[in-house]
């Protein structure tokens, strides 16, 4: 179980490969990767976070997922700082004996990271900068868990 909050890029392929190789007893590994979508003339993104809280909050969410779905292992990497379109923002990986648990835990983690981990995204476009507004659909997504 590992959580990393970092400004540096991460090596997605290497992370998925080593997570999977280390998940002894797992029959199913799910990974999710979030990417800065280069649409609407986006030129960049700045991710602010709350250093004193971010790591702790994600650890708590991950521990909850591991416990609830009996995961063999779980991983969350989330970047902050300046990101260019096409760059990977974050990833989660879950390993479980069966696929249903690995999928559910990964979706749960994503729904919670979206609305409960202290990150704020600011988008840059030619016209200026603007904070990304939280979506009602993301808040609603939490209700299924």
């Amino acid at each position: 179980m590992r959580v990393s909050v970092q400004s540096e890029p991460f090596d997605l392929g290497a992370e998925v490969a080593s997570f999977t190789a280390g998940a002894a007893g797992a029959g199913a590994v799910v990974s999710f990767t979030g990417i800065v979508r280069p649409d609407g003339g986006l030129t960049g993104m700045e991710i602010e976070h709350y250093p004193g809280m971010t790591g702790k909050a994600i650890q708590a969410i991950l521990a909850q997922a591991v416990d609830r779905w009996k995961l063999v292992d779980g991983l969350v990497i989330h970047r902050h700082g300046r990101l260019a379109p096409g760059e990977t923002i974050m990833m989660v990986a879950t390993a479980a004996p069966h696929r249903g648990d690995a999928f559910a835990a990964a979706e749960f983690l994503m729904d919670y990271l979206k609305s409960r981990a202290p990150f704020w995204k600011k988008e840059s476009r030619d016209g200026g900068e603007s904070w990304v507004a939280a979506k009602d659909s993301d808040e609603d997504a939490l209700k299924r868990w």
Partner: protein
Amino acid sequence: MIDVLYFAWVRERIGLPRERVETGAATVAGLVKELCAREERYAAAFADISALRVALDQELADFDAPLAGVREVAFFPPMTGG
């Protein structure tokens, strides 16, 4: 004395990331009221409390939560992680 932190557009509107505040407020809502009374930029940042979130000592809390024993209060918009 309590540390008060601001993030994202709350930080921008108030114009600083953190400050130490002397307060006698019993709850988060009481602290917000004191801050709003200070200056227009605070009133602007806290105009719509339903658009804000608060954490007490790095844990999400409600605006009616008591401040007793709390060392760090953080105000910010709804999170947009992931």
